[in-house]
């Protein structure tokens, strides 16, 4: 690690740090955020990131609507979320300060590009006077850096135009941050060289900006603080940073490979799920078919078609798209074909808050189809867990011959964390019912252990058969209007769910396995709950937690586990959807912590609620 040598600074050691970069959407915030994240990871930190894009594609430069943010928390293994409030806020312009200040505690550090605090810039942000100078920030440690000017100076001989030069100031700022956290610049330099291979002058300029920022921090008196994290002991191996959407996409690729089948992914773009489609589009191959359909109905119907066609098949969407897919998904249910549906939840109802996060499609996933139309619903807990949850969903889909919904949300989809890259050989093989010989083949003869019907696809000689959306006769799958048969088939579809439930691993309790309070979470609240749990444990509070991947059907031992606690608290980003299921399944009233703000629950809120519940016992 590069060490500061030429001046004396205070080194603060801490288990974790939270930094937020903010600036205009044109300022390259996501880019430097990602590079910073990478550097902290390479230095051996756990980390969690969250980008925060403006809702408009290109809001006017310098306005509040145009502010883009990137937050990262890094440090030891207790880091599970991007952090609540940043200890360091980096702002590239006044609007970024105006938008983010309310989320920064007094006493924190604010690093500002002071050159951007011009009259015009201040006005766009709604400031009458300059907050860097008028006392607004007197309770903060403000570090004003004339980053534009310094970058310009550093790149005087670069031969670049002024706008090109100005685009480099984000790397100047990044250099400062690298110095502050004692991070290596090597990897990022390599990255810059590859990225701008075709325009060497730009590569050169960015490298210089980075070095200049680093040198500036090292040289200047105003930086009196450096930070070092206490590293955690991590499983050795190769790691990368991964967003939830990338993780879901890679899991589908991996599932198909493990199953030795072609992957079919049919989808229609929608925020915040489009990146799954876009990621897979990059990896198209003769065995990776990626189809942008005309709408979500076609995407789902084609996914059903591809499953019938014998591919490992999947689709992805967000709320409005999930609504549209329900009818065709129901065809998947009655046809009993394997497929995975990834729903990246966003703020609802209707178009709602397309870029914001929520957990409000749970009940729709379970009950949204007409008729008795059961399927399996899993939820991912963290960006990297989107990989393992989607993989688990794929295994269930194929083993039980059923559609499986994977719930993530925009918080997980856009957030990132380190992911240990598995070797395919480490991952166990898929289970799939064997096809009997053609003369014994019956389309709806079930394996009693899974209730799965055999999967025979066009092209296989001797297995020609016809299926459809009308109720089908036992075994043969022929159309049947028989009343008792309908009852049997309805029961068979629901028995399949029971068998999936039976196969769920015993519920893992974090903390003591009995006591005063159990925090029961699902999906994206994992990070906030874990962090809160660590703090609660440190304070000696009598609280344990369970986090559900299997949200439907629920794990069969969950009832017993919950009974061992006097109270159960369910934090959710909706009005209480899991709570409703728990009430209905276990006939008691859990306590709810519900936030419906399009924002993730944070660990402070969870901890405060834990204390409130325990205090009030």
């Amino acid at each position, binding site marked *: 690690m590069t060490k500061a040598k030429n001046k004396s600074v205070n080194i603060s050691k801490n288990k974790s740090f939270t930094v937020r970069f903010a600036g205009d959407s044109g300022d390259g915030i996501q880019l430097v955020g990602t590079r910073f994240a990478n550097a902290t990871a390479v230095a051996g930190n756990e980390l969690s990131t969250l980008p925060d894009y403006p809702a408009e594609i290109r809001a006017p430069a310098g306005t509040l609507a145009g502010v883009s943010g990137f937050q990262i928390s890094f440090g030891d293994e207790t880091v599970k979320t991007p952090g609540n409030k940043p200890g360091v806020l980096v702002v590239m312009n006044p609007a970024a300060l105006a938008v983010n200040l309310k989320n920064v505690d007094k006493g924190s550090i604010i690093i500002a590009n002071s050159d951007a605090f011009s009259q015009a810039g201040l006005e766009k942000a709604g400031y009458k006077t300059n907050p860097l100078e008028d006392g607004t920030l007197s309770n903060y440690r403000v570090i004003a850096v004339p980053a534009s000017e310094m970058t310009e100076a550093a790149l005087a001989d670069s031969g670049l135009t002024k706008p090109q030069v100005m685009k480099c100031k984000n790397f100047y700022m990044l250099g400062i941050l690298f110095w502050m956290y004692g991070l290596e610049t090597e990897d990022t330099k390599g*990255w810059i060289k590859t990225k701008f291979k075709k325009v060497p002058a730009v590569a050169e300029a960015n490298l210089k900006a980075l070095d200049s920022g680093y040198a500036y921090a090292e040289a200047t008196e105003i930086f009196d603080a450096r930070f070092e994290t206490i590293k955690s002991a991590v499983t050795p191996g190769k790691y*990368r940073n991964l967003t939830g959407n990338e993780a879901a996409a890679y899991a589908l690729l991996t599932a198909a490979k493990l199953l030795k089948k072609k992957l079919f992914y049919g989808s229609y773009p929608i925020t915040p799920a489009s990146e799954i489609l876009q990621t897979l589009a990059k*990896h198209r191959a003769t065995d990776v078919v990626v189809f942008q359909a005309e709408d979500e109905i076609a995407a789902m119907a084609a996914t059903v078609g*591809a499953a019938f066609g014998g591919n490992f098949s999947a689709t992805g969407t967000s709320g409005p798209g999930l609504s549209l897919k329900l009818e065709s998904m129901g065809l998947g249910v009655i046809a009993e074909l394997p497929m995975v549906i990834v729903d990246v939840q966003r703020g609802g109802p209707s178009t709602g808050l397309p870029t914001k996060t929520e957990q409000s499609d749970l009940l729709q996933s379970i009950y949204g189809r007409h008729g008795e139309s059961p399927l399996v619903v899993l939820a991912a807990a963290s960006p990297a867990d989107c990989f393992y949850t989607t993989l688990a969903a794929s295994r269930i889909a194929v083993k039980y011959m059923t559609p499986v919904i994977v719930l993530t949300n925009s918080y997980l989809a856009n957030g990132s964390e380190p992911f240990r890259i598995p070797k*395919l050989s480490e991952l166990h093989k898929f289970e799939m019912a064997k096809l009997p010989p053609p003369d014994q083949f019956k389309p709806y003869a079930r394996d009693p252990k899974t209730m799965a019907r055999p999967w025979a696809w*066009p092209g296989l*000689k001797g297995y020609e058969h016809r*299926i*459809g959306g009308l109720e089908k006769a036992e075994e043969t799958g022929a159309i049947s209007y028989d009343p008792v048969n309908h009852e049997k088939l309805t029961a068979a579809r629901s028995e399949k769910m029971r068998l999936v439930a039976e196969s769920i691993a015993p519920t893992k309790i974090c903390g003591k396995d009995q006591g005063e309070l159990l925090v029961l979470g699902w999906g994206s609240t994992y990070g906030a709950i874990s962090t809160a749990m660590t703090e609660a444990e440190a304070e000696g509070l009598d609280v344990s937690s369970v986090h559900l991947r299997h949200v439907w059907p629920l794990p069969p031992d969950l009832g017993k586990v919950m009974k061992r606690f006097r109270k159960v608290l369910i934090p959710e980003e909706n009005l209480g959807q899991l709570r409703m299921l728990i009430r209905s399944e276990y006939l008691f009233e859990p306590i709810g912590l519900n936030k419906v703000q399009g924002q993730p629950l944070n660990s402070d809120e969870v901890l405060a609620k834990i204390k409130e519940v325990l205090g009030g016992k």
Partner: protein
Amino acid sequence: MENTKLTAKDFSSGLPVKWCPGCGDFAILNVIQKTMANMGLPREKFAVISGIGCSSRFPYYVSTYGFHTLHGRACAVASGVKLSNPELSVWVITGDGDGLSIGGNHTMHAIRRNMDLKIILFNNRIYGLTKGQASPTTLPGSKTKTTPLGAIDYPFNPARFAVGLDCTFVARCIDSDIAGSTAVMERAAKHVGTAFVEIYQKCVPFTDKEFEWLKDPATKEDMILRVEHGKPLVFGKDKNKGIAIKNMKAEIVTFSGAVPAEVAVYDETNDEMAHLISGLKHPEFPTPIGVFRAVRKPAYEELYYDQIKHVGDTKEHELEAVLTGPDAWEMK
């Protein structure tokens, strides 16, 4: 693929066929079974995908792979089948309601992509299965259960609809004209890309008389224009009438003796001619049947697999490289 030659019977599933006695669907079933037998493909290489409607019961009666999907979704499901399993011969069976009302978007996008599907649209100008409501091909003035005073909607002309979308193969035929529909079906079967075939189909309880005038031996030759590539557009019992095109408009010319030069010679590769001909309507004009348009353009799945053939199948190490990405690091 060198099987013993299959016959139409080999393509029957043996299930009792449940259409109304006299329904036009029976004849179409026979023609398609025969066409399939003549394709030289074994049964397992066919997938017959339908929506919901009387016509969409079709797959149950064919001994290939079959999928009776949802109302309107046949083309979408079939696109998934074809892309996932491109060696199949994929047939879409749909109705005027299924394919043009609720399913219009999927039909039109399948055509736009030139997806290699044979889309066979049974046009009985009514919703048969749900017992007689107006469809998008119901003629103005027709009294149906939902149009008690007569339909006011302008109807689609399915073949012209497909031509308007630049479909690479468009044809029209009549259920009872076995020779005509066999010829059309044989060509559709061989076409690579979207083949759209509209079949005028009799529905006994609801549109019994709809196409009678095209079937009555006394009048039909004056009512029908048989369109053939490279042949002049001549019709009439006495082959004494022809279609001339003047100022981008069709005109009927009557002649005796040799066909005059002003009678247009049909060119199935000419978009505008297909558009004009498919638009000819009773009573001003005879009703054209036959192949209106046939051109070869790479099909969607051809373009798809072609674009990535250099990539081939994903090897394990390639997938591992993808998972690793450009930015990984080692932790010890």
